[in-house]
């Protein structure tokens, strides 16, 4: 199966690989997927507590090229966005941007889930309620 150029570029030059201090109140961590399924994504956001804007984002991913590219792209998209804006990122945005084929849609779903999980982690740390999301259909 041929990968799109954008997937290859993110794979070869991943953006924002790394780790933020997960004990910091400013940092939200989302860990989604499972080793048994061949994909695990960890997405972290650092949020400015005054403005509510995401100032930094990092990822680490165990998975195929599309999973790596989706999480790399997610960190790029998140930086500079407010939490509310970040919540509007949809898995289909990844599919379109990266030209993911149908068998790779689960990678985009995982990236969306990772964003939501990171935001919820941040909210809980800061005394806010967990946002309940509808279950993703494609897994």
């Amino acid at each position, binding site marked *: *199966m041929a*990968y799109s150029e954008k997937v*290859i570029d993110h*794979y070869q030059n*991943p953006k924002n*690989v790394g*780790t933020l201090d997960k004990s910091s109140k400013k940092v939200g961590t989302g*860990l*989604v*997927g*499972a*080793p*048994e*399924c*061949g*994909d*695990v*994504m*960890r997405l972290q956001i650092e949020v400015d507590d005054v403005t509510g804007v995401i100032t930094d984002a990092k990822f*680490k*991913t*165990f*998975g*195929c*090229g599309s*999973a*790596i590219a989706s999480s790399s792209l997610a960190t790029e998209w998140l930086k500079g966005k407010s939490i509310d804006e970040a919540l509007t990122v949809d898995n289909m945005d990844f599919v379109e941007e990266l030209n993911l084929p*149908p*068998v*790779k849609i*689960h990678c985009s*779903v*995982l990236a969306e*889930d990772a964003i939501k999980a990171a935001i919820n982690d941040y909210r809980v740390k800061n005394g806010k309620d967990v946002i309940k999301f509808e279950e993703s259909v494609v*897994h």
Partner: protein
Amino acid sequence: MLKLPIYLDNNATTPMDPRVLEAMTPYFLEHFGNAASRNHPFGWEAEEAVDYAREQVAKLIGADPKEIIFTSGATEADNLGIKGVYEMYAGKGNHIITATTEHKAVLDTCKHIEKSGGEITYLQVKADGLIDLKELEAAIKPTTILVAIMYANNEIGTIQPIREISAIAKKHGVLLFTDATQAVGKIPVNVNKDGIDLMAFTAHKMYGPKGVGALYVRRKNPRVKVTAQMDGGGHERGMRSGTLNVPGIVGFGKACEISMIDMEADTKRISKLRDKLEGELMKLEEAYINGSTEHRLPHVTNISFKHVEGEGLLMGFNKNIALSSGSACTSASLEPSYVLKALGLGDDLAHSSLRFGLGRFTDEEQIDYTISAISETVLKLRDMSPLWEMYKEGIDLSKIEWAAH
């Protein structure tokens, strides 16, 4: 000069040996006859060429030429051998014993038979990929007509104890079928010494052309018969109708002849390269060889690199190195290799595996390049892997509640 890409997927198919192509060419052009045309020189030439190839093929496996039934490949030979015995020996019983690590051409054939009223026992394999001979013997019952166990596995290269399996089958009056696709031409296979009654194999795994294979069917002690699976002109002693693929068969014969001559030298050279590749890659942390290293094809190794995913790993170098992975991220099911799972590997290790199949045209420069490209990619992806980070922090990954999807 190193030429890229490097081909290390010789278990999938092999490049043709130029000597094979040379032998085939005239049979596409001037000697195009139908081997079944009995009344003119075109037919005679074709028949003569097929007869000669039949001898070359038979010689490689220690058979009589009359025992070779040409087919379109190993899948057809698997179907013909297993379904053909099931139908021919219906009066004797309906039970077949096979193993969970067989090729799909055998497993799906067995499933087909199950649907039509047959009974199949699927033997589990041990952690090294070998079947348990005691379990095999215990599974035999009065209705058992066939044991179908592969000679060597396509994913991990494990060689089954065919002679011991044959002895057990013989003791109970049961026929032995073996899919020897990966073994014939690579290691010595002899149907008489090994006690094989039916055997499937193919040309394109031994530097011959695609689209031609054979089923060996024993003619003496015991005389074995199979029911034809295709109706037609009654070619191949009535067992396989269809105009013979003369150029393909000629190429198959030549490939067998070359393999026989070159086998010892090839094995010596290739196994040395395989051992170097394996030895160097095993220097990486958390690398594991899958399957037996003792009973294994000389050109194969299958290694899992923990905490990196196979397809992601392949992407690091698949423009330059052709390999396959036990991971199945491309399939909708997301199920990793059933062969690796049958060894008892966790899904995580099965997803992290690479299969290397070296061949006659693999050289040391290619292996050196492969060692460094793979080592670099593994290290790079581990830097990117949350599982590797957790492992390094001493977190027990099996204790984490993963949101399975």
